């Protein structure tokens, strides 16, 4: 399997590198929480390793009082806009250049991921809207589940993405 291109398709598995994805980290200021921050952007950010979808942005819980906001956009002012909206309640920094996102979907997606993730991805405990910050083959990843297909998005630090692709190819070959 060659992943140098944009993706890969096989029965029960589709792997795709998502393009034009913007990222921003959100850190709550003192005495602020998902509710008080969320009300500035039209909702409430769920506390815990979960995702919240508000408009076209997904907010991924990465720690107490911290979220990773992501959106499919070419816009370069994603983080600036968010920072303006959240001014005074949260610190926002642009992470768009920091991450690469791989989307894995299909019947065999869970099986493939489970080879590298040391947490339980069984649908009883990890389903749509769940997220995890963890490691795959010592590579830091943020995983969130999009739907029950299942579809997962996996963000890795940009410079580690070739290593992550290597892990993917290696794991896939041993199916």
């Amino acid at each position, binding site marked *: 399997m060659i992943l140098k291109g944009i993706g890969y398709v096989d029965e029960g598995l589709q792997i795709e590198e998502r393009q034009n994805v913007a990222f921003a980290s959100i850190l709550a200021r003192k005495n602020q929480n998902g509710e008080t921050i969320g009300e500035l952007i039209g909702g409430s950010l769920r506390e815990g390793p979960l995702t919240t979808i508000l408009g076209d942005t997904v907010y991924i819980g990465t*720690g107490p009082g911290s979220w990773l906001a992501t959106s499919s956009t070419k816009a370069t002012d994603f983080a600036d806009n968010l920072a303006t909206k959240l001014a005074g309640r949260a610190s926002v920094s642009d992470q768009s250049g920091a991450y690469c996102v791989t989307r894995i979907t299909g019947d065999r997606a869970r099986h493939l991921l489970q080879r590298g993730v040391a*947490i339980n991805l069984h649908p009883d405990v990890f389903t749509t809207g769940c997220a995890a910050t963890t490691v795959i083959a*010592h590579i830091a990843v943020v995983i969130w589940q999009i739907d029950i297909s299942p579809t997962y998005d996996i963000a890795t630090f940009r410079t580690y993405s070739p290593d992550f692709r290597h892990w993917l190819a290696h794991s896939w070959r041993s199916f």
Partner: protein
Amino acid sequence: MRIVCPYCGDRDTEEFIFRGEALGRHPGLNSDEYAMFEHVYHRTNLSGKTSEHWYHVQGCRNWILVERDTLTHTIYSARLAKDGES
């Protein structure tokens, strides 16, 4: 050994950095030499149930206060250190 992070859930210890025994607060810059010596160098090094600080570096990046048995590796509790001391 696995630690149940209060935020992330059940995780392998490879995601954590072990800092050591959970000590009391820093005695303060105006404390005497003996108090500072105690804080910096003295550890009880218990054989059995003890409180420790672990940092969840590959997860939520928070300090976790873990009660662990050093003989059996049984983990009795784990909570965010910032929520208060034991």
